[in-house]
């Protein structure tokens, strides 16, 4: 397909969701929640992130886009220190501050951090337990065991993840008995059950069919009012449809970061333009 046809398609495909968005002025009032400054990150000897600086605003959806291996997932996993689980991974320079707390300081409680920064993974991964147990897992870890409280959280979380009506009669069946899209929404419900401030989503729809994807995207829209969402996606239409701000990464560097509309309509960088218009990636 030539670049020309793509350029023609782009506005019609992307325009409606962007047009639906509230005035840009509205997003300006949101404060910075996550402040990444001059971050260098290594896997062993390989430098995976080069000098990343990025401010993510509160209660907005920020999308990380870029070709495979560009470091977007790595950066996402830095935000709740999931990279700690990899022995050879380390932050070499720079800081990540969430509400002015540097989360890489030695005195930071990683467990507390992860309660505040929830995560949804690329492949849905409910535990091999019942739907109910899946949702209450995080609370039980915190020592909550009162049935009434757990019931309440299960209902609230499942409603929050738009799954309640589908599963309310079979809460005690295995989470693995659900369909792929339902499983992913169950994972979202599980993440919001512990009431985090931030939800990280690592390509949450890449294993889902278009209908399930549409439901999850709808859900992201609804969640925005309560949570700050950072989403990594390969799917540019998805970034355009559901994010307020977009960061484009290439080869471990942040190339451009701006309002989603700007990135897709008037990118200032040639690489960004080439990527969003589908010329590479």
């Amino acid at each position: 397909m030539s670049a020309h046809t793509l350029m023609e398609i782009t506005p019609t495909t992307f325009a409606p969701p962007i047009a639906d968005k509230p005035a840009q002025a509205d997003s300006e009032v949101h404060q910075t929640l996550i402040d990444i400054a001059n971050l260098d990150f290594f896997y062993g000897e390989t430098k995976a992130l080069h000098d990343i600086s990025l401010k993510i605003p509160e209660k907005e959806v920020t999308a990380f886009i870029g070709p495979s291996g560009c470091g977007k997932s790595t950066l996402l996993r830095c935000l709740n220190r999931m990279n700690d689980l990899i022995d050879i991974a380390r932050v070499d320079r720079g800081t990540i501050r969430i509400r002015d707390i540097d989360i890489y300081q030695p005195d930071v409680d990683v467990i507390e951090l992860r309660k505040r920064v929830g995560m949804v993974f690329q492949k849905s991964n409910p535990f091999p337990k019942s739907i109910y147990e899946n949702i209450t897992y995080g609370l039980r870890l915190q020592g909550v065991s009162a049935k009434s409280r757990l019931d309440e959280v299960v209902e609230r979380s499942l409603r929050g993840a738009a799954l309640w009506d589908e599963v309310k009669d079979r809460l005690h069946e295995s989470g693995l008995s659900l369909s792929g899209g339902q499983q992913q929404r169950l994972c979202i419900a599980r993440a919001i059950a512990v009431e985090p401030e931030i939800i990280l989503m690592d390509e949450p729809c890449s294993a889902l069919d278009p209908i399930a994807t549409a439901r999850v995207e709808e859900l992201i829209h609804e969640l925005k009012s309560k949570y700050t969402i950072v989403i990594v996606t390969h799917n540019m239409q998805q970034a355009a449809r559901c994010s307020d701000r977009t960061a484009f990464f290439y080869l471990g560097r942040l190339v451009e970061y701006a309002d989603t509309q700007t990135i897709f309509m008037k990118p200032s960088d040639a690489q960004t333009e080439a990527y969003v218009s589908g010329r590479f990636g």
Partner: protein
Amino acid sequence: MPDSDRPAFAIRKTRTRFLGLTMDECIQAFFGGNALVAVLVLGLITVFLFREGSGFFKQNQSNIEVYRTAGLEYVDHLKRQEADHTALTRYLFDLRVRVFKHHTEVEGATLGEANQQLIAFDDYSYDFGDTVEPLREAVYDLSESVTATKTRMLVNEDRLVERQQLRDAGAVEAAEAVVIEEIDLVAARQPLLAFRPVYGQINGQFAASLLSVLAAEAPAMPTAELEARFTRFHELVEQYIDGFPTVEAALNTWDPNEPIPTWKSWTSFITGERWLTASFWQDWYGVLPLLTGSLMVSMVALIIAVPLGVGAAIYVNQLASVREQNIIKPCIEFISAIPSVVLGFFGIAVLGQAIRIISQWDWLSWVPGFPVVERLNALTAGVLLALIAVPTIFTLAEDALQNVPRAFKEASFALGATKLQTIIRIVIPAALSGIISAVLLGLGRVVGETMVVLLCAGNRIAIPDFTTGIAAFTQPVHTMTGIIAQEMGEVVQGGIHYRALFVVGIVLFFIALFINFMAQKIVQRYRISIG
């Protein structure tokens, strides 16, 4: 040219053939053949086991038949009565030891003084011991007579077999020359039947003399506790006397011609409490002592090996650093490379001795069964078997833990779980069926292990005395595997003993089959639940 009519590419099969098969088919046949060998071997082993073992029950039935016909059953009633009396004498002896100990240790008497004080007691127990004499003599005479009859019957059976073999070989004359003695069973049994009225008298006297001993002045006991034991002795003797009419009735109703039902040969094997072979009196093939021994040893082994193996697997797979993994894993796996005979040797030379010494420490005397009497016992063998089971359990449990998808752990961490919470709440439940089947396969390994139990279990063929509670584990036992290894070399092929060992082998085979079947079932469920 004719070729020009053909299409440009060849579609005929032109591959080389060997015995009408193409190369691919040959290779397939080779692989299929290999797979078939496994199935065939298993089939052959099963058929062989059953073929060799199947004759046992018929032979066992005739074994019991001879026991009855020759009159051994009759005499055994009397022997049991005699043995019960011996047990009572032993009780008295035990009591004497206690009283003696009391005199020397509590009252500080010298050995001579203590013996002096016990003269009355000794007279009493001599009197008690003497009461059985008439019965003992009668039993002795009858035993001689019935053993003679039995020997003649067995010789005859042998000769019948010999004649049949000669006849089969074509030596008809030689076959006819084999003398088969006519046994007049009625005459042979005459002493037994004639003994019935005599027994009535002997029994009456026996009971009377026992009662007179009881009525005589009892030796004084130094403490209330010993007094209670002496009173208990009185009760036991009274119960013993109460049992006399039963013995008499058994003798009077004994019928040498009553047929032995077929099930008897089965139950005497499955529920038989005696495994007695090459005996002068009567051979018994009861699997129960061996089965109990095997189970006890396996139980000890599992109790030790499960926490060790599973715990080590959890540590290595979930918590250990790469360096630790590289040290621990080969070490545990190396244990399985130690030949079991070496382990057994270690058990005799080191472990058995160590357990005995440790059991003699005063501050451990609260442990049931301590101090241990026998150096080699179920506990020693079990501890060593645990060493054999640990590598199996460890390796398989670690595999099961390894197979828990990483995504489960990540999801748990992302929800704010600590490492331990994740292990306990997510990883272990997800791997549980794998761990259980690892334990079952470890059990299979333990039940089938031979060398260690043969060397270290003590090899006493008797059901341990469970009235001592958990201390029964410090008694020597014999096992199913051990007995086969020990006795197979010295039995007559085709004889009843030989076949009995094969039936024990079949029992083992079924136990192993069951364990493996369960392990596979559980693993299947596990695969499904992980999805």
